[in-house]
């Protein structure tokens, strides 16, 4: 059957990320971050988004700086190897914050999404007890179970989750590997999922290893072929992390004007990911994706035969 799911990044963002949507992204933590999708959201000037994720390694900061975001539901927003997230700070410091933050821990955001996936109003945990997350996020509540206090973590069901993967077929079947964080919980909780893939492969490749598949294809609304789409975050088997990019961004975004220049250079003035990679430079990209020291490290063979 012909695929209506395979589409360009601009089309996927236009079709499935309306203003005001709740979007889960950055779900594998520091790897597989869908930067290309985030940059397209910025180019399309989306407004009033709710961002949901565990930690965000600068992508949330970019979406906030570009004015796309009205709410952040997350455990940590910063720059993992370089420090604070400057746009995030600017949006929240002082007495007129331009952003609502719902504070979570990594475990509680995973539980919230799992509750959404499970169709229950909440999941309980003994984490967070005694912390001020219970004060600053009014959605948490202490409940008692036979006298034992537990934190009630209310369910989250994002309208869309965006996941970056190593390979996908045009129906939405996808393989990803390496550290995956809360990708599975979020993909199951989301009403729809946009799958970004380094490679588009025949369905037979995906179906040769159904245990490696991330989510059922019927949840997938769009498949986008976007090689290099997670840069500067790493993709196991494809490219390493571009540490310098995070440090350069950290310096550039210290002021609002600096961020605006960075946005202009790396987002607004490039038409898409291919142009972005060209700007990055073939040499730099080759160093990340095909370093001289790189040796393939193949997973041991697995036979599904009978």
């Amino acid at each position, binding site marked *: 059957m012909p695929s209506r799911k395979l589409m360009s990044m601009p089309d996927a963002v236009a079709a499935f990320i309306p203003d005001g949507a709740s979007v889960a992204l950055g779900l594998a933590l520091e790897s597989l971050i869908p930067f290309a999708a985030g940059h397209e959201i910025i180019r399309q000037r989306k407004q009033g988004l709710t961002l949901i994720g565990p930690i965000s390694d600068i992508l949330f900061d970019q979406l906030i700086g570009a004015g796309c975001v009205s709410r952040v539901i997350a455990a*940590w927003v*910063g720059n993992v190897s370089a420090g604070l997230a400057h746009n995030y700070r600017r949006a929240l410091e002082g007495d007129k914050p331009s952003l609502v933050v719902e504070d979570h821990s*990594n*475990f509680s955001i995973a539980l919230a999404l799992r509750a959404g996936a499970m169709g229950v109003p909440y999941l309980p945990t*003994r984490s967070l*007890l005694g912390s001020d997350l219970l004060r600053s996020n009014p959605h948490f509540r202490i409940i008692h179970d036979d006298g034992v206090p537990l934190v009630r973590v209310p369910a989250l069901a994002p309208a869309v989750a965006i996941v970056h993967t190593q390979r996908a077929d045009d129906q939405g079947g996808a393989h990803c590997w390496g550290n995956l964080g809360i990708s599975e919980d979020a993909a199951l909780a989301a009403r729809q999922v946009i799958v970004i893939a380094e490679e588009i492969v025949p369905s037979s490749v995906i179906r040769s290893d159904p245990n490696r598949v991330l989510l059922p294809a019927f949840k997938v609304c769009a498949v986008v072929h976007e090689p290099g789409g997670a840069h500067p975050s790493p993709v196991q088997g494809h490219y390493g992390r571009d540490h310098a990019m995070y440090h350069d961004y950290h310096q550039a975004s210290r002021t609002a004007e600096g961020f605006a220049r960075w946005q202009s250079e790396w987002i607004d003035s490039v038409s898409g990911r291919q142009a972005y990679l060209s700007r990055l430079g073939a040499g730099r990209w080759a160093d990340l994706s095909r370093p001289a020291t790189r040796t393939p*490290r193949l997973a041991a063979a697995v036979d599904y035969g009978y």
Partner: protein
Amino acid sequence: MVTSVGYTAQELMVAAAAREIHDGEVVFVGMRLPLIAFALAKRTHAPNAVGLFENGIVRDEPSRELLYTMGDPPNVVGAEWCTSLSNIMCLLAQGAVALGFIGGAQVDRFGNLNTSYIGDPCAPTTKLPGSGGATDIASLSHRHIIIMEHERRRLVERVDYITSPGFGDGGDWRARVGLPRGGPAALITTLSVIRFDPQTKEAYLDSCHPHSSVEEARAHTGWDLKVAPTVHMTAPPTEAELQVIRAIDPQGFWTHV
């Protein structure tokens, strides 16, 4: 900065942190200095320790390359398990994790840690990144170690916001709020090692680093820091320890700051 004694404060902190890891323990590693401390412990006195990373990774041998984040590809290669954050957090929640490491911007006399808001959370003067997994580690591991700069603005009488619960206001506070176990075992700073009284849970100065003193540590603490009668000098890193540390971080990305 390398001091006249031939090692940096960070290198000493790494050595001190490594000594908190006992052989065979399951440890929530975290990034930066604790990551190097874990690798150091593995290569010295704790060869059977196991490291957990909240992004989903379990390792019983440190990555062969320096990590800038726990999600760097070298941290996946050779891992014992690569799974979901939820599964890793389950191990923490069920009490399988002996020790965790966290860092922060503010800590107080009962070991409560703030990595969220300086000032009023509704109108903060500084918005910090938030919990990440730190709240979970502080809530659910059997003990945890806090690592941070020893500055008067950081070691404060009472944190503005408890991101990661220490001992609250002392005594049996953790049990009273329902935490199943745990609490900080030590606060390792750039000047000293601070521990907590078994009964009152108040912080006390346990040892000063060779380049510092009781007076300096107290002067850079925002409350009247108690001093152990047995206060002593923190053991400096040995030559062997320094060799391991420098093999792990040859450029000093994390240990020469």
